[in-house]
């Protein structure tokens, strides 16, 4: 039981924090700046959207902690996951998805639905004609990506999804969900290069190619001449 010792120590602690924001970390300089950090802040000096500097912070950061979000951003790590995306192979333009409906079945809030594509003869083709995800309902759990047997659906990193209108724009269709495998390789380099995915990719590519050709009744046509499926999806068969 001291006479006001706690008072004095407490005031010292807060004063120390106050001073340290000027003495250590990025508060010491004017180098890191969001908007309004410089004495004069001009709009044309700003970085383009998406090009903003990324700030590395961890438990050892001292002084100012603020990351001025739209002008600076925290790094996005590979296993960070927001909405799913559908991957197509940019070698041949094939959508990997076979419309097997597994993801739609495992999705806990049931926000995926799709229709099978049909070949010229009216038979179903292992491709999605339409593929929808209600992004208001999706809870970013990633189960769809875990269950997909063809590595076709993967989790995206883009979390800036706000919109002025919700009924039209928040139902993501095939067009909104498709990304190239190159994009996927860029955002998820570790996963893309892992042994698992490499072998899986090779296996699936071979199998799927055969099935596709069989379904389209094209016999032994080489894979490279198959019409890019992305375009098929853009104008689905009536």
């Amino acid at each position, binding site marked *: 039981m001291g006479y006001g010792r706690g008072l004095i120590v407490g005031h010292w602690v807060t004063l120390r924090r106050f001073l340290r924001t000027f003495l250590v970390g990025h508060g010491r300089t004017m180098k890191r700046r969001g908007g*309004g950090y*410089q004495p004069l802040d001009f709009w044309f000096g700003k970085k383009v959207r998406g090009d903003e500097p990324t700030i590395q912070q961890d438990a050892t950061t001292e002084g100012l*902690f603020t990351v001025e979000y739209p002008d600076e951003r925290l790094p996005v790590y590979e296993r960070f996951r927001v909405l799913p995306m559908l991957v197509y192979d940019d070698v041949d333009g094939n959508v990997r998805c076979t419309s097997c409906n597994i993801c739609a079945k495992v999705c806990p809030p049931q926000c995926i639905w799709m229709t099978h594509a049909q070949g010229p003869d009216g038979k179903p083709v292992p491709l999605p004609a339409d593929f929808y995800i209600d992004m208001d309902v999706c809870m970013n759990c990633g189960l769809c990506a875990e269950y997909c047997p063809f590595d076709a659906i993967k989790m995206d990193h883009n979390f800036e999804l706000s919109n002025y209108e919700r009924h039209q724009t928040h139902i993501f269709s095939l067009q909104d969900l498709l990304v190239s495998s190159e994009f996927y390789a860029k955002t998820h380099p570790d996963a893309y290069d892992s042994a698992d995915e490499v072998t899986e990719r090779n296996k699936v590519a071979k199998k799927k190619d055969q099935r596709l050709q069989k379904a389209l009744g094209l016999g032994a046509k080489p894979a490279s001449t198959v019409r890019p499926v992305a375009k098929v999806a853009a104008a689905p068969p009536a």
Partner: protein
Amino acid sequence: MNVACDWAFPLVWAQQSELDSIPWLKWIIVLAVVFFGIFPGIVAYTVWGERKVAARFQDRIGPNRVGPLGLLQPIADAIKLITKEDLVPRSADRWVHLIAPVLILVSAFLVLPVIPFGVGLAAVNPPSGLIYLIAVSSLSALGIFLAGWSSRNKYSLLGAMRAVAQLVSYEVPQVLSIVPIILWAGSLSMVTIFDKQVLYGWFLFSPPGMLAFVTLTIANIAEVNRTPFDLPEAESEIIAGYHTEYSGMRFGLFFLAEYLSVFAVSCLGTAIFLGGGTLPWPLTGEPVVTLGGGETLFAMLLLNLPLIGIFMAKVSLYIFLMFWIRATLPRLRVDQLMAFAWKFMVPLCIINIFISAVWYECVIRPSKPNYLLGWGVTLPLVVVSIIGVLALYRSSMKAEPVELTTGSRRRSVVRSVS
């Protein structure tokens, strides 16, 4: 030179012997500039400073989006407050609801004219300046109570009740810690107090002076309802207390008044303990001694600019002290608040008056001041009295609350059973 010093208060009409030929016009211009320009500006940038400082205390940056370093933020806030809808609750007492914030603001403004910002820069110099100051600053309690009462809202009323209890309690130690100054200066006039400090150095530099300064600061913080004494507007308990039902510019007036009174009490503390605009001990009364004496406009400017600069620096430090305390201490409970005022502050202040009388006998009254004797006698007295009052206060605090809570809880249990 008169333009600079005549700014604030119609009482001057009665006192001034040489009125200009167009005094009305001059007064209107001066009032417009000072009341609608300088003081709101000071308030606006105190708010900005508080937000910046509080942010740094929490490892944040603070406002930095509107203008360079967020400097235009207060202007944006003012525009927002002015253009917002002014709501009055249907069951509120319209006129009282309207008058209450104005009353608080007037109280904060009326403190300022007697503050000697520099030589000849106190707008009015009534011989009983300190009494006047205490009187007008206690007007705000009335305004706060009217605000809470007229809103017809239980939270407002609770806040107002707390505010009145707190303001009335802390006015006592506030006045009692000013008494040593009156004793030493032999006058109630703020200007005389300033002149005495130019001659003898700051009143802070004595053991009873330091103790009185500390108690005055605590009482000041309580008077302007700032953390840890912000019970009247404790947002986690009673929404916003007495100004819960205010919106738009009426709320803005409360805001203005709060920060203006922060500025005013800081000016008070600076003027009576920190020697106004003078420098500390080795350079006692410095800018006045070397630069003073001139009668021309230029000489007055040369003297008063550094004086005002030093005064404002001291006021800023005092305000920073308040921000610092706010960033550190949590809110007191009501019973702690009352006990602290009546069981600790008041006895300590009363004892301190006697100690300052000893200091007066040792240092100020003799023609040749005996500082060594003064420090030697009063310092142990101050230390002993602080420890003694603190020990008494602690022992009294230990016994009571325990009994209170268990007793009342048992009673409520019994009532619910029966």
